[in-house]
């Protein structure tokens, strides 16, 4: 999943001028943060706010209208948030990722009550539960999954995450039209309650993949009848813990408990309201006036710093990295020389960037793969801040003290955070290496165009992992991967990834991946800067809300046992 959607960027561009004024207003109210969780008035300040005190049901915000409610087509964060509550896959994400040591603990049974894995690690046999039903009362069968997956893999079907299914045997060839016989694809309906999936290679994170919305079942008969209109509130049929009651564009979505859901007795909240609040300043205001129980999206650095000591403030670790990517495809560019890339990477003081520029809200990234992935240990200390060595490397490359180094451009999309970091890095490279960098900022879509057509030299980027495995961070640097966008190619690296793919011993597999990551850091096209965290506001009265490194929080796990008292004046 990518960090920033176009909508977010659009909002940022639009609201650039606003940010200052709004921040002022927020800051003005928050000179004295609340010392405790008990609502109390503070001298000269507004009374302490209570999250959700003005909401008539559990309410949270998403940052944009979902582009679609069709799980097979979607790809953004707001869409995902809705899909995980409306639909249910064979497996589903668990309530938390905190402290998990085994990848298998990340997901819990969904429509499948259990699965078996074959000896060679390639064939999964899912046993579907008998009481899994659609919201119209019809049973959810293995055939529903088979038809839904086939739809996503249909050539020319506009599914953004279609390639996620390519781990299934022959799925890629089918989706590219190279084979037309569906029976050659590794998805077999054994009977109504048994689905057998054969993979091209052992893929330990497959259970987490089937817990991803692209793999969710969709009501195919309804789709054939209604076309794109099947996702309208008046038409939609889903199989998750909730159903869609209503949707008002740019306003809200109303979810209601699915009475046919197999686990409905354990679903505490009968209904939920998803507010669509595009501007993060407005989201903070809505939270402050008691309209929300959960801010929903990570708030920007400037907004959250005033609320750091508030009892509702929560910092979740995120499976994501903020980094600079380097275009190595231009033979004339000094960036082709690995020593130059290494020198640039070593001359960035990440500690200072995170502490001084980002107010300690994020964590220093010395590696590319974020820490804490079950079973994965990175090699060595990773990148370090070493000005002396950086200078030596640059001199070796023929640019002592930056002499003769051509002016290189650093591209970022319009955003306050990106600007702050780019300016800091620019100053560090000037001070430490004598290298001049020109900052270029572009509107989101133009930035995308430049990156995808490789018309840049250095560009900011962010990557949020799609599943809890280093592969989601490493396969993008493989030769020919569509997300590579740097022209970098390394045979040894590709070989290590292929070895990891074929490897059945989990420890050995992780070792190959760690070696691959070391190569990316040593000679790759990346300069990691920081690991993301998710900085949010969540009502302290909400129960069941636990940290999740992919920011997935299912409403079915939540409850609001006590309505918070009105704030004391």
């Amino acid at each position, binding site marked *: 999943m*990518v*960090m920033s959607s*176009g*909508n977010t*960027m*659009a909002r940022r561009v*639009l*609201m650039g*001028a*606003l940010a200052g*004024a*709004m921040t002022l*207003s927020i800051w*003005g*109210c928050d000179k004295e943060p609340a010392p405790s969780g008990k609502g109390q008035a503070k001298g000269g300040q*507004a009374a302490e706010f209570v999250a959700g005190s*003005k909401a008539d049901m559990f309410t949270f915000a998403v940052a944009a*209208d979902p*582009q*679609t409610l*069709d799980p097979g*087509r979607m*790809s953004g964060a707001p869409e995902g948030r809705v899909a995980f509550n409306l639909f249910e896959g064979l497996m589903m994400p668990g309530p938390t990722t905190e402290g998990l040591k085994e990848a298998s603990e990340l997901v819990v049974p969904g429509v499948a009550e259990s699965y078996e894995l074959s000896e060679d690690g390639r064939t999964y046999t899912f046993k579907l539960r008998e009481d899994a039903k659609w919201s119209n009362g019809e049973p959810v069968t293995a055939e529903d999954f088979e038809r839904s997956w086939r739809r996503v893999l249909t050539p*020319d*079907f*506009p*599914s*953004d*995450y*279609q*390639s996620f299914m390519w781990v299934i045997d022959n799925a890629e060839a089918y989706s590219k039209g190279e084979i037309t016989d569906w029976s050659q694809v590794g998805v077999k309906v054994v009977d109504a309650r048994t689905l057998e999936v054969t993979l091209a290679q052992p893929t330990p994170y497959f259970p987490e993949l089937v817990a991803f919305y692209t793999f969710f079942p969709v009501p195919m008969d309804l789709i054939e009848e209604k076309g*794109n209109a099947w*996702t309208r509130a008046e038409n939609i049929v889903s199989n998750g813990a909730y159903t869609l009651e209503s949707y*008002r*564009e*740019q*306003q809200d979505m109303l979810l209601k408990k699915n009475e046919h859901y197999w686990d409905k007795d354990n679903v505490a909240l009968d209904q939920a309201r998803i507010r669509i*609040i*595009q*501007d993060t*300043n*407005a*989201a903070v*205001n*809505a939270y*402050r*006036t008691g*309209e929300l129980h959960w801010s929903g999206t990570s708030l920007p650095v400037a907004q959250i710093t005033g609320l750091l000591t508030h009892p509702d403030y929560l910092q979740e670790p995120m499976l994501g990295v903020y980094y600079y990517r380097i275009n190595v495809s231009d033979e004339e560019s000094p960036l082709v020389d690995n020593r130059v890339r290494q020198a640039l990477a070593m001359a960035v003081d990440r500690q200072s960037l995170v502490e001084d520029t980002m107010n300690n809200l994020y964590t220093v990234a010395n590696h590319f793969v974020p820490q804490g992935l079950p079973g994965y240990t990175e090699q060595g200390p990773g990148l370090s801040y070493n000005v002396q060595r950086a200078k030596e490397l640059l001199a070796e490359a023929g640019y002592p003290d930056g002499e003769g180094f051509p002016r290189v451009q650093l591209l970022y999309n319009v955003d306050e955070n990106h600007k702050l970091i780019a300016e800091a890095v620019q100053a560090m490279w000037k001070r430490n290496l004598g290298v001049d960098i020109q900052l270029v900022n572009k*509107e*989101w*879509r*133009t930035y*995308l*165009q430049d*990156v*995808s057509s490789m018309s840049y030299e250095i560009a900011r*980027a962010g990557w949020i992992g799609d599943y809890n495995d280093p592969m989601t961070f490493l396969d993008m640097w493989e030769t020919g*991967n*569509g*997300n590579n966008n740097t022209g970098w190619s390394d045979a040894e690296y590709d070989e290590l990834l292929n070895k990891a793919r074929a490897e059945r011993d989990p420890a050995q597999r992780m070792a190959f991946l760690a070696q691959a990551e070391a190569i990316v850091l040593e000679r790759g096209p990346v300069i990691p800067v920081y690991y993301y965290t998710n900085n949010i506001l969540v009502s302290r009265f909400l129960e069941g809300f636990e940290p999740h490194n992919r920011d997935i929080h299912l409403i079915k796990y939540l409850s609001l046992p006590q309505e918070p008292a009105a704030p004391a004046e």
Partner: protein
Amino acid sequence: MTRFIIRRLLSSVVVILTIVTLSLWITRQAPSNPCLQEREANACACIKEHALDRPVFPVHSPPPLTPLEGCQYWESSGALVLGPLEVLPVSEWNETQYFIYVATLLQGSLGGSMVTDRTVMETLGAALPYTVQLGIQALLIALLIGVPAGLFAGLRQNTMPDYSVMTVAMIGVSIPNFVLGPLLIMLFSLKLGWFTAVGWESWADSVLPSITLGLFYAAYIARLTRGGMLEVIRKDYIRTARAKGLSEQLVVFRHALKGALLPVVSYLGPAFAALLTGSVVVEEIFNLPGVGTHFVRSALNRDYNLVLGTIILYSSLLVVLNLVVDILYTVLDPRVSYDD
């Protein structure tokens, strides 16, 4: 009059079609396209779904095609190419993006959004009532404050009350609504808790945005009314009215006001249009579900169909509003007549 209206409506169709043609060309000139995403996505399928792999117009300058892994799409180089033009065979004209779009329009549809799975009609239809209500309320506020204030000042030219009112009006014109809006939120929502800070659930939620949007126009209308009053009050027919011994009240309200309000009336059409199209920032600050937000966001998303839909909506509104103003003119000023 009827003939005038019919003539104007017919010419409007031509105007709007010209606007559509130019806008369609301009949207395609912007770099990037609606299918591009940060993560590698199935852009090819998206491009084919929206016919972006077809030429834009039957007449184009080569080479317009950019290959994209297995499919090609029509991507502008960003620069105007004035080289030799290629003309597609007539049989292929109906497969150009322009003809496909115009055919959609002729069927009474604005097409589907290229980014969401909703149609442009659905999206704009849901948003328009909010924008119109906001615009009308803001205009009412502007008139209710602006006209009396302008009259008050105009009748007391170069006195202290005149200066005071005009100073306030000057401040009103100068404060941008992205400053006023947050200030109102801070005071009335966060501090006093009288209004909700975001969204539009009930009528009360439209109060702060209407004030934010209307105050600028109130200030401007006050200045216009004052100016109109100063001009009219010295006219011969006012002097005559006074000489006849009419009361000052009758002179002002029956004779002077009509003339003084002419500049205000001619300003109302563009002002209402500007209120409808210019509520973008206010909609964003208060998180209102209006058209303005769609307009900006669709342009940034390169959602061509939604951009064009919004442009058609706005230009139609402008055409109609200008027509209404022209008709109002005949009511207020008997010298104006459109009859042949």
